[in-house]
């Protein structure tokens, strides 16, 4: 059995099937709680545990998928470039908002981790949790963070953003779509952005821009912290 599951095709096929089930479930249930990535991770973990397949076997295929992470991050540039017009028009509020948001996110996570007495490696894993997964991982990993903790925290934060955004917009009386979009993107990256797109075109574009810009700002901040 172990010779069969350690083929790279096994890990890739299992991941694709699990993700397809996740996407289908989300389309059916239409709630941000059913994030396809979370569902896929749970399904794969379940299969590995039930059939006692070692993670190393699965990772033979996982490595192949991992290879696409850096190219996917690079392609965020295409998403920013396609919004160049709106970026030029609002560059100043975007820069101020993303800088303040990234700083608030990192500082609040750090403070809360201290408050709850979490250890160094968990704190480092959580600090970049508001930015998009590839950037969060590349901030946490070289500094001694636990990558899967970062990944799960990032996704969870995204889901929270999707749920809280409409409530917070009402509660804080945010009438400006630029402010609403940037706040969603800065606090909950791509998962939140899918919610922002539902709220309106400006919200969606701003939220999408905030993903890349907060990512870069977070990387720059992290260079000074560690």
């Amino acid at each position, binding site marked *: 059995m172990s010779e069969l599951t350690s083929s790279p095709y096994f890990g890739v096929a299992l*991941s694709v099937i699990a*993700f397809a089930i996740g996407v289908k479930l989300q389309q059916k249930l239409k709630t941000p709680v059913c*994030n*396809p*990535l*979370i569902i*896929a991770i749970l399904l794969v*973990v379940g299969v*590995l545990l039930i059939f006692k397949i070692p*993670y190393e076997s*699965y*990772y033979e295929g*996982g490595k192949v*998928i991992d290879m696409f*992470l*850096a*190219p996917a*991050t*690079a*392609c*965020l*540039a*295409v*998403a920013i*470039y*396609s919004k*160049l017009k709106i970026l030029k028009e609002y560059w*100043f*509020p*975007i820069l*101020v*908002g*993303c800088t*303040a*948001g990234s700083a*608030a996110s990192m500082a*609040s*996570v750090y403070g809360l981790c201290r408050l*709850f007495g*979490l250890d160094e490696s*968990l704190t480092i894993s*959580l600090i970049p949790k*508001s930015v*998009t997964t590839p*950037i969060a*991982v590349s901030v946490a990993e*070289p500094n001694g963070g*636990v*990558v*899967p*903790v970062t*990944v*799960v*925290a990032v996704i969870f934060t995204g889901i929270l953003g999707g749920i809280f955004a409409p409530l917070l917009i009402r509660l804080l009386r945010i009438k400006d779509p*630029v*402010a*609403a979009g*940037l*706040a969603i993107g800065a606090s909950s990256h791509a998962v939140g952005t899918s919610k922002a797109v539902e709220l309106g075109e400006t919200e969606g574009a701003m939220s999408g821009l905030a993903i890349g810009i907060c990512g870069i700002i977070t990387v720059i901040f992290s*260079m000074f912290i560690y």
Partner: protein
Amino acid sequence: MKIIRQIGIIFAICWFSEVIESVLPFSFPASVTGMILLFICLAAGILKIEHVQEKAGFLLENMAFFFIPAGVSIINYFGILKHSAVQIVIICIISTIITFTVTAYSVMLTVRWMNRRKQHE
């Protein structure tokens, strides 16, 4: 051929970013360097959006899929997480609300300040 060329362009940029990462005196993630390089290439007109559109669309639309292996490796860390799961959940909730509020208000204040300056002119 079109898709192969697009894959080639993007992978070449990623490889070049890794080269840059290895020579930089400080640590800056290669994936983010790749993003900045690709943006510069597009903005400077070295690359046209048509040169990367399909491949970028494929990667961006399926972004979540590529994180499955990273997420699944949580299986190796159940021990650490068991003790701190509740704290992590609370930290995520509070800091998400703080980040949202700070971003929204700083943007609104900036926009208001800019409008006031415009009126003065």
